[in-house]
């Protein structure tokens, strides 16, 4: 389309330089907003620093918010600017300038938005792989596996509870998730019936539990605290009640706890099916209605 600059309609007084005024408005508001986003909002929006993964997600949130801020101020203040300055006078029937496009503006816009999008995608990919999946369920064979010793823990989801198996401790199955601090944990998530999702909000871990699928996520707790585990995928009537509490404890306390469990649950462990990454029970046709 044409690339002519807008000319002013004949019957109105000379207009101010809108381009300059709006550019200043945008710059000022962005410069004011950015520190607020980085220092005030940024620390609030992540899931906290319960694990290396959740801290990493917090950083990612802040970076994305920083990138979004100029876009937000651009459009919002443009809208306000237009509403204030580009009005029809009361009862007027003035026509605006018949500009049908501006090649330079359009090209610039396409290039800048494409570059921003590429930057976001590259950043996201780099963070995802550097952080070994950032706590997300990464399938049975994750692309990047953290080096060093890992504690495997299996999360078994079923309607409507989670149980946890520790394969390196004789496959003992507990109803409480206890994790040692500062130790990379390899979470294997699977389901016995429908699709569930294992979500430890404070640890920044979420991995869907599919029947017959082993879904692996890595998480390294960094804070001694208790956390809530809930189901994040609609799984039936009592979905809202499918949660329990886990704890991050010191490695010594973990050793004591797991040995206690091994002894206490030895009779149960004996009759459990052998540890496996997936379990395929007979399909259940119907749940009890309510």
């Amino acid at each position, binding site marked *: 389309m044409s690339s002519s600059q807008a000319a002013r309609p004949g019957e109105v007084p000379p207009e101010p330089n809108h381009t300059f005024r709006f550019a200043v408005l945008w710059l000022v508001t962005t410069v004011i907003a950015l520190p607020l986003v980085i220092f005030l909002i940024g620390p609030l929006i992540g899931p906290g620093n319960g694990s290396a993964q959740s801290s990493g997600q917090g950083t990612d949130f802040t970076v994305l918010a920083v990138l979004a801020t100029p876009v937000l101020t651009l459009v919002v203040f443009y809208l306000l600017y237009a509403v204030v300055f*580009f009005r029809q006078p009361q009862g007027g029937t003035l026509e605006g300038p018949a500009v049908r496009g501006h090649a330079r503006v359009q090209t610039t816009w396409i290039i800048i938005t494409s570059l921003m999008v590429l930057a976001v995608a590259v950043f996201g990919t780099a963070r995802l792989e550097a952080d070994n999946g950032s706590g997300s369920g990464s399938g049975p064979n994750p692309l990047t596996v953290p080096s060093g010793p890992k504690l495997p823990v299996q999360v078994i989801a079923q309607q409507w509870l989670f149980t946890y198996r520790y394969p390196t401790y004789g496959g003992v199955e507990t109803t409480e998730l206890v994790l040692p601090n500062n130790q990379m944990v390899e979470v294997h998530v699977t389901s016995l019936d429908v699709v569930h999702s294992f979500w430890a909000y404070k640890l*920044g871990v979420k991995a869907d539990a599919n029947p017959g699928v082993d879904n692996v996520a890595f998480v390294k707790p960094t804070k001694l605290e208790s956390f809530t585990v809930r189901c994040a995928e609609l799984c039936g009537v009592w979905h809202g009640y499918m949660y329990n509490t886990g704890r991050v404890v010191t490695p010594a306390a973990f050793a004591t706890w797991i040995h206690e469990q091994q002894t206490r649950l030895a009779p149960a462990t004996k009759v459990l099916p052998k540890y496996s990454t997936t379990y395929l029970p007979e399909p259940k046709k119907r749940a009890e209605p309510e």
Partner: protein
Amino acid sequence: MSTSSVAAPAPQPIGRPVWRRLLGFNLLTAVLLGVGGYYLGWWIGHLINGPSFEYETATDENDVALLLAYTFGVIGFLIGLGFANYPISRLLGRPASLREKESEGIGRYFGLCTDHKVVGMQYMVGIGVFFFVGGLNAMLIRAELLKPVPTFVGPNQYLSLVGMHGTMMMGMMTSGVLGPFANYFVPLMIGARRMAFPRIESLTFWLLMAAGFILVSTIFFGGFPTGWTGYEPLNDQAVMGMDSYIVFFALVGISMALLGLNMMGTIITMRAPGMTWSRLPIFVWSVFATAILMVLAAPMLVATLLMAALDRTIDTSFFVAGGGGSSYLFENLFWFFGHPEVYILALPGFGIILELIPVFTRKPLWGYKLAVSGMLGVSLMSFFVWQHHLFVSGINADLRPFYMLSTEIISVPTGFIFLCVMGTLWKARMTFAVPMLFCLAWVFNFLIGGLSGVVLSDVPTDTGLHGSFFVMAHFHYTIMGGLIFGFFAAIYYWVPKMTGLRFNEMLAKWHFWLMFIAFNSTFLPLFVLGLKGMPRRVSTYEPALQGLNDWVSISAFVLGISMLIFIFNVVYSLIFVRKPAEANPWRSKSIEWQLPTPIPVNNFEQIPVFDSDPYDYGTPLQIDGGGSGQPATAGA
């Protein structure tokens, strides 16, 4: 289309006795045959699905019977409306006709009518009713969430409410703009006398009505626990109410595919002389882009639901892991439809906004080609992003960078739309009529929706947000803030043309301001709730979040009140006061406003010839676009 192929409307015999008219093919016979078909299917289902099916003896459920009952009921309903008459009469060698019921009085709104304007009005009222039902469900959901523990609905009813709300909105509102406005205005805008397939046009509407009724009937069969996504194997496990969901969505899928096909056929083949692709109104372009999605995506949904129905009835195991199937298969197939689906909802909104803003800014549409490429780009790209719904599911985890990139790339063509809006607003002469207010609100809402979408497209941040209220807030911003605000802009803009009556301006402004403020006050806090870790689709939550939830619920009720103001305005202005609207209250240069009100059955006495696009506003700077923007020979 040449004008000579138009057959004269066949005059209907007038003055038949009432009993004779009731016996004809109308809504009454349709309901009778529909109920008859339902019970026939129910009976056959019990006949063939006897004791040989062992699970049937364990529960008192018979999915075969219900599915057959729904199918036969819908077929009976359609026969009762008269959809079988024409094929049969053609088989018997009777002459071809494109018209049905067009010259009847009020009765043409209650049956198979081939006038696209009648179908548009039918859609408007029909969709409005189901939109209201879906909204009522939302009010009940928010009432339940006032307290962190269950209060007045049990967990099963709660999930049914959530599922009904989601499915109703995602299913019925796919045709929310294309149904009423595209059916009504696309033929007018391109200078055609009708749609390419007028009977199929009517069929899409009546299929949708049957579907909506079937979805509501789920409450008699125990509801369904899966939400609108219907994930397997929960779907397989659910009670009979799930069959209502399956039949509903399958019918919506068929209706959508036919509607899309009809729109594509009309836009491609029936443009008047001079209506070149580069003069097509931008709204028609958005309809075209949506139609492509509908035709390509909806059949996937129907096939998926057929597989789900087979799993439920004859124990195939497409989706049951224990039988060799995979729950991933359903997720993949569903979202391969489901992601284009959300753009089916969003794209018509883009079209309405870009169509209306030039009228109220008195400027031509800025960057027409950019807008068109933006819409087609969104439409094309939306087929390559579906696995972003499955980022934490563990499927194809190595491909996540690709889906991250493709999802983020889709914001580039979406950005074109924003640039075109902003370019059109530059040095504009804006008037703030109600449709324009809705358009401006759209810009803000969709901006928030889009920016929150970028956060969700990034795998590390999505890990915390997937399945939380953040997602819920995001898609309400894009769909309610995008589509529904566009929908209301279109209502306030076009209904004066469709009915010849004007809305009460003050009530309309109250509606807008209350809706805009309450909408943001409802959904902005939901982002916070999501960031604090509150999952979707639960009726219990941490007591610490009650304050924010109460705020959201009360805002949602205010949002509901704003809808009541709208309904009051419709009843008050269009039924009681009936003030005639001006011929062209917005001084629009689009062709539909140059036609007389009510628009004659044939639309145009002579097919118009176009020599420009309809955006010939503004003080010209140079010779571009040119033309008068009006057809040389409009029937006005």
